[in-house]
């Protein structure tokens, strides 16, 4: 994307005020999407974002500037602004030679979406619309969205690192509204992978559309959700959001360093029941949170965070790792070249347990079964977290019963980890997610087998 010599000169400029570390992050991202709503392909959108972010570190201070101008002048200008912002003591000249280490990864997509005709993409939308409406007369509205992106990045820093990646992602979602005597209800399904258009060889959009339609129709007969504290069984795939919120964010080293996490200072402790092994893994090829290198040029890694209930490590980016004199764990990510990187999750999951999922349900006298979770939110300093249930049922006498209406569940991370009392053997990845830490959105994946939490608070209206 840029030649080594230009990068070396830019880094030298960035270091000219005495900084100990400088980094150039170059990004060229092309996106395209197509939207169907109200029975019609409404709009196709395409866009391009290209630019560089320059980071300069002096002591504990980071200076950052970005530019969409990738010429020598544009880069030098941004480098000076970033260097002035960090303002080191020394000054002087330091030459940099990048390329001593780092990897260059190519795209892994078999069918680059940009090579696929727009008519083919549009046809997927029409098929999803027809299939969803065919499920039943209650389906009153359907929206479907296709999206793809190709993000080429280059990271070079004053340690000599030079790394590149070419990340291709493809996404498809269907949202349905069903209308009945009880009003309106919604159902949504989505699939997203870090692969190309071959996504649609392994995913049938018709099936996806039918699932979304059925979900909306099922909820028309939903009862008000219960209120109060009770056992909750989360179905395969869905529970990842729970762990993302209940402990994932609390294991991010930037929050830990500020003691803004209930998990600070607890490495080596039993923080969860022995059934829980929590892993964050950017290497999972094809998954939504996958990449070859993170946005600081570090290779993706498989990181065990909780091993059979014992907290083993946090997640790290370059800055926090450097301070601790340890390597980054490949969790330094950013939304775009316009943002500073920070510690972020990739694909976060609970590995398989030994329980039969049917036994987990039948062993629950009364409670709630959550088949699909919505988003969530956590306060890492207190550990209190919420997540939404977008498809859920009552469990009565060990059997899944009536559907219940949408609502939030609330719990406390450290407490919830100690209340995981059953973990199934039916591991599945969940839906593609966007994590919005500090206002920066990055794609994340998650997964779990079926599991049961002894007690969570259900935010319903029924007594």
């Amino acid at each position, binding site marked *: 994307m840029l030649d080594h010599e230009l990068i070396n000169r830019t880094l030298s400029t960035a270091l000219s005020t005495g900084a100990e570390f400088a980094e150039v992050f170059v990004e060229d991202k092309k996106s395209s999407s197509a939207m169907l709503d109200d029975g019609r392909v409404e709009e196709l959108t395409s866009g*391009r974002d290209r630019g560089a972010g320059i980071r300069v570190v002096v002591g504990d201070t980071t200076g950052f500037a970005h530019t969409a101008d990738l010429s020598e002048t544009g880069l030098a200008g941004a480098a000076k602004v970033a260097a002035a912002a960090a303002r080191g003591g020394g000054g002087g000249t330091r030459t940099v030679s990048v390329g001593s280490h780092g990897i260059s990864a190519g795209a892994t997509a078999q069918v680059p979406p940009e090579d696929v005709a727009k008519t083919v993409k549009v046809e997927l939308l029409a098929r999803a619309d027809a299939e969803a409406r065919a499920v039943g007369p209650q389906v009153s509205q359907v929206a479907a969205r296709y999206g793809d992106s190709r993000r080429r990045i280059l990271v070079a820093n004053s340690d000599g690192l030079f790394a590149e990646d070419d990340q291709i992602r493809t996404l498809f979602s269907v949202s349905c509204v069903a209308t009945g005597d009880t009003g309106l209800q919604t159902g949504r399904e989505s699939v997203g992978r870090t692969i190309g258009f071959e996504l649609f060889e392994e995913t049938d959009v018709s099936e996806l559309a039918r699932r979304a339609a059925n979900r909306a129709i099922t909820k028309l007969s939903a009862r008000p959700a219960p209120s109060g504290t009770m056992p909750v069984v989360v179905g395969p795939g869905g529970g990842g959001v729970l762990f993302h919120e209940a402990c994932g964010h609390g294991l991010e080293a930037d929050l830990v360093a500020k003691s803004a996490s209930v998990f600070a200072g607890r490495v080596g402790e039993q923080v969860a029941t022995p059934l829980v092994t929590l892993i964050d893994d950017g290497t999972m090829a094809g998954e939504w949170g996958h990449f070859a290198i993170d946005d600081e040029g570090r290779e993706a890694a498989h990181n065990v965070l909780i091993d059979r209930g014992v907290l083993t490590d946090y997640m790290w980016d370059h800055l926090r790792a450097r301070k601790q004199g340890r390597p980054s764990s490949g969790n330094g990510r950013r939304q775009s070249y316009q943002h500073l990187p920070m510690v972020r999750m990739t694909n976060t999951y609970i590995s398989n347990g030994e329980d039969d999922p049917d036994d987990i349900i039948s062993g629950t006298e009364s409670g709630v079964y959550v088949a699909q979770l919505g988003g969530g939110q956590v306060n890492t300093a207190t550990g209190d977290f*919420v997540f939404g249930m977008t498809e859920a049922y009552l469990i009565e006498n060990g059997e899944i019963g009536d559907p219940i209406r949408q609502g939030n569940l*609330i719990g406390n991370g450290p407490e919830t980890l100690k209340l995981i009392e059953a973990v199934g053997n039916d591991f599945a990845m969940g839906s593609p997610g966007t994590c919005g830490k500090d206002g920066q959105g990055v794609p994340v994946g998650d997964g779990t087998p079926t599991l049961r939490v002894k007690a969570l608070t259900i935010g319903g209206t029924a007594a």
Partner: protein
Amino acid sequence: MAETNGSTNTELLDIATRVAGWADSGEQVEVFVAEELETEVRAYQGAVESFTSARSQGIGVRVVSNGRQGYAYAGTLDSSALLETLLQARDNAAFAEPDEFNGVAQPDGVDPVEFDLFDSSLDDFSTDDKVALAVELERCTLGADQRIAGIESAEYVDTRCESAIATSTGITSTSRETGCYLATYAMAEADGETQTGFGYSISRGPGALDVELAATEAAERATRLLGATKPQTSKLTVVLDPWVTAQLLGIIGGTLSGDAVQRGRSFFADRVGEQVAVDDFCLLDDATNIDAFTASAVDGEGLATRPNSLIDSGVLQGFLHNSYTARRGATSSTGSAVRAGFKGAPGVGSQALALRPGTHSQQELIASIDDGLLVQGVTGLHSGVNPVSGDFSTGAEGLRIRKGALAEPVREITIASTLQRILLDITEIGDDLQWLPMSAAGVSLVVADVMMSGA
């Protein structure tokens, strides 16, 4: 290429007009051009943790041809990107299906209000001053209460946004505004327990920023929840703090968009003229109110914004429209086209919602409640509220109200109802109307019969 600081409305409008002028015959083109300068200073332990200086520019082009709509954008105003973006949008339009109501806005003769949202004193506010404010904010937050044990973040942010819209139908509009804010997240500790709270101060220019206000508010919010416990589940009367009410209004505003109504995604469809809320409930969306931080003279399609009464004395008056939903609904645009930057075509939505305030202070409202809950913060509105069905469930924290007085703090609870019921269960609206950094004003709101779910 536009210069960093030399760019003015005229230059942006020139670009927009030039690109709109490239429209083919029989084709409509709308061009949105924006430039934003931002400075962000984060302080930590008495020093600068990070200093970000950002300038971003972009263009978004909408093409409507034979009723088909296409959109494209580029994160640059480099002259080579302008034509390319138009060509992309044109190509995209060819693959969409036609809709007779598609089109860009037409001039409607309504003059935009004249107000100045641009505080030029920001130009003279030095980097050192910005750094000093952030550092001072952290120091004040830490010193605001001896139980404050740390901060998650303390930051100073300023932005300078300019934009222009031009269409092949003859619309030209420009806007520019500045904004500055201080925001701090404090952590309070007592007996091994941690609670957090945020505080802020916002204004158009740096002169009015109030470090003390932001710091004490953060400390107050963090400390008042210390010792909070999880209460028993019960149905009770809740008082929503202005901050919470404003978030609720934002969700209700979404259900009043003409788009949601026309596409069968609003429970308000077909209910114009009906009583949907209690008599005291008067909801106005008015981006011409300069007190609103989201005030704007023009909407996302370049039409003048105007006051829109949505619910008056509890009776549904109508919906918000952009030019598309207006044509489709055989009505006029209400100047309610909204856009989130240059990366997407304008949608329709509320811009500055406010309830007509009542006559009692929050303290007086609380004094009239025997058994209740003052809700000071909510979490997970995006996951627990469904604006289509109206289901409303959110994580909450606050203080119990007992015999007319504030009592113990509570946490790890949810409050739940439906949006439809909440509007009919409101018993009082406070007199404490205040504009907040979102597209709605807050006011204390008393709602009866809300389920509080706890232990």
